[in-house]
């Protein structure tokens, strides 16, 4: 839901500053120049929050506030005073009418956003609201760990990604970093002294800008208590040491909501290619399954009629992979897509050993596979180069 904030101030300058302060958040700013306009806008738009000045022509802020509080439909809308009218007695008098906060001008934009963020659930705007970031996009990951060797291991392990891994040794440095940058993901070691990891976690969560930033905990596999505590506090994921880098990579991609489909699906000329990596783990199978139907449908939608399932990198078969392949073939058939397989000698021989895969036929390369479509097009065998697999219950 997109939040609406109504700013009521006779100064256009203040209204522009308010707009500027919230421009990186997913909310709509509505403007009014005095109490009368403010009441009309509040009734029409039903904002989620009102920022209200006091000294204004036509109708001042105190009168508008009093009218809001006596209107049954408006009285629930939280109001923050944003005014140069301070002074203890004045503030107390107005607070009694019913305001959620009171900001005395001059004010910092950060403070305004922070105070509003306590009342409404402000979400930072993503660059493209509909398009998910892909695994080929750069991202900043902050690693807070007092052991440099671990930071190095993560940096080394993820160096093939476009992600910038920034390592720091203390929470102080981490806070400093977060003040100047907005990391896309934070990994905090639970081994930092004095439970500093939990304090840092809370600080990051309290900041409006990083409220939704995924935070991973890093902990030794056997430290069950710390893991449990991290889970209760709300860490997005627990990474256990020794670190399994490929697992960490896919968890990071998932937490950052990255589109990883390009790893497994591509369009090569007029052919749709589904490729399984060397080490197709359970996690990978899950990821591929998620994308399978929409990706094939997308290809068909764009006019593609041929598909290649490329297994030449795959090390070995297991039931999960076989089920995935059968489902992929099934989906191709449902959408009348011709498909064929590419395999290596290991996979070809393993396929002979399973009932469901015994009759699968493989090509050696993309070129072979593509050439085979020409031949099969003239055959009457439903356009499939590989024999149809038996259904799996």
């Amino acid at each position, binding site marked *: 839901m997109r939040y609406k904030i109504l700013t009521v101030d*006779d*100064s256009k*300058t203040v209204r522009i500053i308010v707009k500027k302060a919230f421009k990186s958040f997913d909310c709509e700013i509505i403007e009014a120049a005095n109490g009368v306009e403010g009441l009309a806008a509040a009734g029409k738009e039903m904002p989620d929050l009102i920022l209200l000045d*006091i000294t204004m*022509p036509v109708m001042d802020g105190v009168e508008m506030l009093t009218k809001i509080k006596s209107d049954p439909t408006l009285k629930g809308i939280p109001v923050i005073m944003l005014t*140069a009218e301070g002074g203890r*007695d004045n503030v107390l008098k107005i607070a009694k009418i019913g305001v959620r906060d009171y900001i005395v*001008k001059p004010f*910092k934009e950060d403070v305004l956003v922070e105070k509003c963020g306590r009342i409404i659930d402000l979400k930072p705007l993503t660059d493209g609201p509909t398009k998910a970031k892909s695994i080929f996009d750069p991202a900043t990951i902050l690693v807070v760990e007092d052991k440099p060797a671990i930071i190095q291991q993560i940096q080394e392990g993820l160096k093939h990604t476009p992600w910038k891994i920034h390592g720091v040794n203390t929470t102080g440095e981490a806070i400093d970093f977060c003040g100047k940058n907005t990391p896309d993901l934070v990994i905090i070691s639970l081994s930092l002294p004095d439970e500093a990891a939990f304090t840092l976690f809370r600080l990051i969560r309290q900041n409006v800008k990083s409220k939704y930033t995924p935070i991973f905990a890093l902990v030794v596999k056997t430290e069950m208590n710390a893991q449990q505590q991290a889970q209760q506090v709300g860490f997005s994921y627990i990474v256990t040491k020794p670190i399994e880098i490929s697992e960490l990579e896919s968890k990071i991609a998932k937490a950052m909501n990255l589109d990883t489909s390009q790893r497994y699906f591509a369009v090569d000329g007029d052919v749709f290619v589904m490729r399984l990596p060397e080490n197709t783990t359970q996690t990978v199978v899950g990821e591929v399954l998620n994308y399978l139907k929409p990706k094939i449908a997308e290809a068909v939608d764009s006019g593609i009629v041929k598909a290649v399932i490329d297994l030449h990198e795959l090390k070995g078969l297991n039931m999960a992979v076989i089920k995935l392949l059968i489902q992929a073939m099934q989906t191709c058939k449902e959408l009348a897509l011709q498909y064929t397989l590419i395999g290596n000698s290991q996979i070809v021989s393993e396929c002979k050993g399973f009932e469901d895969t015994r009759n699968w036929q493989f090509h050696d390369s993309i070129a072979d596979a593509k050439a085979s479509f020409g031949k099969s097009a003239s055959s009457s065998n439903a356009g499939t180069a590989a024999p149809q697999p038996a259904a799996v219950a």
Partner: protein
Amino acid sequence: MPTIDQISESVFRETINRAVQDVFKTMLSKAATMNNSSDVANADGTPWEHPVQINGQQVVGTVGFIGDISGLIYLYLEASFANEVASHMLGMTNQELVEAGDEVVNDAVGELTNMTVGTFKNQLADKGFPCRLTIPSILRGSNFSIEPVSSATRRIYRFNVGAHNLVVDLLMKTGD
């Protein structure tokens, strides 16, 4: 009840100094330094020599305060300084400001004055002199002077903000 006469010169000076510094630091990230050598000129009501060398346009913001003490504060800014202030507050480039026109600069200076006078009078309110602000107004020109009536007390404070000068002219109704 305290009376205005009980407020000493140093309290006025300190209060206005804090207000200007606070507003410029918070809104513009700029340090304002009070120039002590020549302030409190003509507090006795003698004819006022204009405190600013007017070279070209001036933009003057005014906001009043009314209550247990009443008065007016004028903030004098050279036009180039006023543009700089507006550009910083609004996050606009000079070109955008030119396109937007004087009105936008006036509004920004008005708001700057409003905040300064607000901070000034809120401190006085906490000292036992409640009062409220008036709506800002703006004066633009290159050859003018503003004169108080004889019953008003005038205090003039000068500030340096980077390479620019800021003059704060505080006029107060004398205690009845």
